[in-house]
C-alpha cells in the first residue's frame, strides 16, 4: 500500500509540475489541447459512472507487477509498447461490476460475474481493469491469464502423485505460481498469511503449520514436481483465510469455459486424450470458483476461442455447458458489447493523440467504423496499416 500511494503521489506531482512548472524547464513544452478523452483519476478504486468513456492510465510499475506474465492481450501489449503508456478505456461492463462489488455482502459466498461477448469486444481488457481495481482495493489476486493455454499447449505432463489417474502440468503450474507471487508478494508479506496445516510432500520435504505462504510458494517454484499440489493447497489455504477474514480474495479467470471442454492436447501414458476434467490444475481452479467460501469476488470470462468443440454461440450457458452452468450458478452474466458511437469517437481521438492514425477525415473514420462494425479488435486491426 505504501508503495502504491507513493507511486500515485509521484504521478500526481509530476503531472502538477508539467501543468504549472514552465519556469524551471529549459525547453518550452508546447501547450497541448485539453485532452477530453482522459481522466486524471488513475485509481480504479474511485472509478464511478462519471468516469465512463474516458481513458485512464495504469502506471508502468503496476503494469509490470500485474501483467508481466500475461493478462494483456498480445495486440494490446504491442500497443502499450508503441504508445509508451498502458491506457484503458473505462467502459460500462467494468463500471457495472465495480458497482456490484461495492454493494455486495461479503459475509455471503462470493458473487460470480461471467463476462461474455463476441470475439474481440474487450472481455480480457475489462478483466484487466477489474484486476487493477482489485489490486487497488488490496485483494489477493488469483488470476489465470488464459486457461486454454494449459490444455492446448502443455509444456510438460506427469502423472499426479496424490490423485490417481490425474495429470499434472509441472512447468505450467510453477509458471502460474511465479505469476501469482509476482502479483501478490507485497500483500502476502504484509498480511502475513501462514499455512494452517502440516503438509508432507516427501520424506524429507514438509511444510509445517505456521510457515508463511510465500515460503511455500517459493518451494513450489523450486520443486516443480509438487507445484500442482501446492496450488491445490494454496487455494484451500486462501479460501480458509478469506473465510476467517484475514484477507479478501479476487478470482479472475480468462477463458474459463476451457475447463469444461472435451478438447485437450494432453495425452496420457496410453496416448489417449486427457480431458481438462482430469487435469489437477482444473480441480484447483474449479475449487476456488465454488460457493463454499466467502469474502471474495469471482470474475470469469468465457470466450469462443477457449474451446475447440463448442463454437456456435458466444452466450454463457452454451459455452459453459450444463455442467459448467451448474457449477457457476447463480452467476451474473455481463455482456461486453461492441463500441457505442461515443466510445468509438473517444477511441479515434485517443489514437489520433497517440499518432496511431493521422489526418483522417470524418468520412474516413465513418468508413472505418462501418468496416469494423464498431468491433474494438477489428477497429484496431484496420487502423494498423494507416
Amino acid at each position, binding site marked *: 500500500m505504501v508503495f502504491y500511494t507513493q507511486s500515485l503521489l509521484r504521478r500526481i506531482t509530476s503531472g502538477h509540475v508539467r501543468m504549472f512548472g514552465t519556469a524551471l524547464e529549459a*525547453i518550452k*513544452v508546447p501547450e497541448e489541447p485539453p485532452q477530453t478523452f482522459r481522466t486524471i483519476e488513475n485509481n480504479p478504486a474511485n472509478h464511478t459512472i462519471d468516469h465512463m468513456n474516458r481513458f485512464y492510465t495504469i502506471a508502468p510499475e503496476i503494469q509490470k507487477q500485474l501483467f508481466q506474465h500475461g493478462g494483456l492481450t498480445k495486440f494490446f501489449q504491442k500497443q502499450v509498447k508503441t504508445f*509508451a503508456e498502458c491506457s484503458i478505456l473505462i467502459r460500462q461492463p467494468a463500471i457495472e461490476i465495480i458497482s456490484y462489488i461495492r454493494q455486495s455482502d461479503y459475509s455471503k459466498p462470493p458473487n460470480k460475474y461471467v463476462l461474455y461477448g463476441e470475439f474481440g469486444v474487450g472481455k480480457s481488457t475489462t478483466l484487466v481493469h477489474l484486476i487493477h481495481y482489485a489490486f487497488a482495493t488490496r485483494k489477493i489476486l488469483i488470476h489465470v491469464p488464459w486457461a486454454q493455454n494449459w490444455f492446448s499447449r502443455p509444456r510438460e505432463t506427469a502423472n499426479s502423485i496424490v490423485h490417481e489417474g490425474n495429470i499434472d502440468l509441472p512447468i505450467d503450474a510453477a509458471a502460474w505460481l511465479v505469476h501469482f507471487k509476482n502479483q501478490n508478494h507485497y500483500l502476502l508479506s504484509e498480511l502475513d498469511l501462514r499455512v494452517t496445516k502440516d503438509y508432507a510432500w516427501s520424506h524429507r520435504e514438509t511444510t509445517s503449520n505456521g510457515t508463511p505462504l510465500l515460503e511455500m510458494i517459493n518451494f513450489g517454484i523450486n520443486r516443480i514436481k509438487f507445484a500442482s499440489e501446492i496450488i491445490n493447497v494454496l487455494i484451500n489455504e486462501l479460501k480458509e483465510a478469506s473465510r476467517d477474514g484475514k484477507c479478501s480474495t479476487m478470482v479472475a479467470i480468462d477463458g474459463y469455459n476451457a475447463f469444461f471442454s472435451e478438447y485437450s492436447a494432453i495425452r496420457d501414458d496410453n496416448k489417449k486424450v486427457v480431458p481438462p476434467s482430469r487435469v489437477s490444475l482444473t480441480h484447483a481452479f474449479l475449487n476456488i470458483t465454488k460457493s463454499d467460501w466467502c469474502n471474495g469476488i469471482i470474475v470469469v470470462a468465457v470466450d469462443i476461442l477457449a474451446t475447440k468443440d463448442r463454437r456456435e454461440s458466444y452466450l454463457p450457458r452454451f459455452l459453459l455447458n450444463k455442467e459448467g452452468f451448474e457449477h457457476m450458478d447463480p452467476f451474473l452474466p455481463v455482456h461486453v458489447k461492441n463500441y457505442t458511437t461515443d466510445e468509438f469517437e473517444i477511441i479515434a481521438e485517443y489514437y489520433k493523440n497517440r*499518432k496511431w492514425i493521422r489526418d483522417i*477525415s470524418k468520412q474516413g473514420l465513418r*468508413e472505418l467504423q462501418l468496416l469494423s462494425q464498431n468491433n474494438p479488435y477489428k477497429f484496431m486491426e484496420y487502423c*494498423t*496499416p494507416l
Partner: protein
Amino acid sequence: MAIFRTLLRQVTFQKVLLGTKRSGVISLTNNYSLFPSTFIKGTFIPSEQNKLKESGELQKIAHIPIKPAFNDETSSEFYDPIVRKFTNYIMRKGKKVLARNLLEKTFENVKRIQLEKYNSSSFEAQTEIELNPTVILHQALANCKPVLELMPMRRGGVRYQVPVPIRESRSAFLAARWIIEAAKDKERTIHLPEKLAWELIEASKNQGRAVRRKQELHKQCEANRAYAHYRWS
C-alpha cells in the same frame, strides 16, 4: 440456279473472311481486352469524378460505355495507387491476400518503429519524423528510382553494356523490385514484414541496400559512358 447458289456461298464466305479480318484487327489493337475499343476508361476516385462533374465533361461521356474498375480499386480515402502497385510487386503465384497482409504488416512495423522513435525524441526532432507509412513508401520508392540503365548491345561481335535512359514506369518498377529483393535477402527466422519495414525506412532516408544498388548502377553507367552513342545508332 446452281451457279447462283455457289455464287451466294462465295459471297457469304467472303463475308466471313472479312469478318475474321476485322476481328483480328480488333483483338490486336485491344490487347486481348474483354471490352470493345469503344469502351472508355472511367475513374473511381471521388475527387476526379467531381472534377469531371464540374468541368461538364461528364455530360459528354454520359452515353459512352465505361470499363468497370478492377476489384482492388476502391473509392476509399485509404486507397493509394502506388501502394496497390507495390502490393502487386510483392505478390507471388497470384496470392494477393497474402501480399496485402504482408504489406499491411510492414506498414504496421514501420509505424511502430517510427512511433517509438517519435516518443523517445525531443520536441524539435519530433516534427522531422515521418509517421505516415504510405508517405515513407513513396519517399523510399522515389529515392531508389534509377535514371539510367545498362543494356547489353552487340556491335561488331562484342557485347557492350550501353547506358540508356529509361522510362518512368520502368524506373518505378526497378525501384520497387530492388527494395523487395533487398528485403528478401534475410535470415530464415526473420519475417518479411520486419525486414521490409526496415528497408523502407532506410530507403526513405536515402540509405540502405536498394539505394546503394541504384548508385552502383549509376557508377557503372558512368564508367560505360563511352558506349552511350550506341543507343542512338
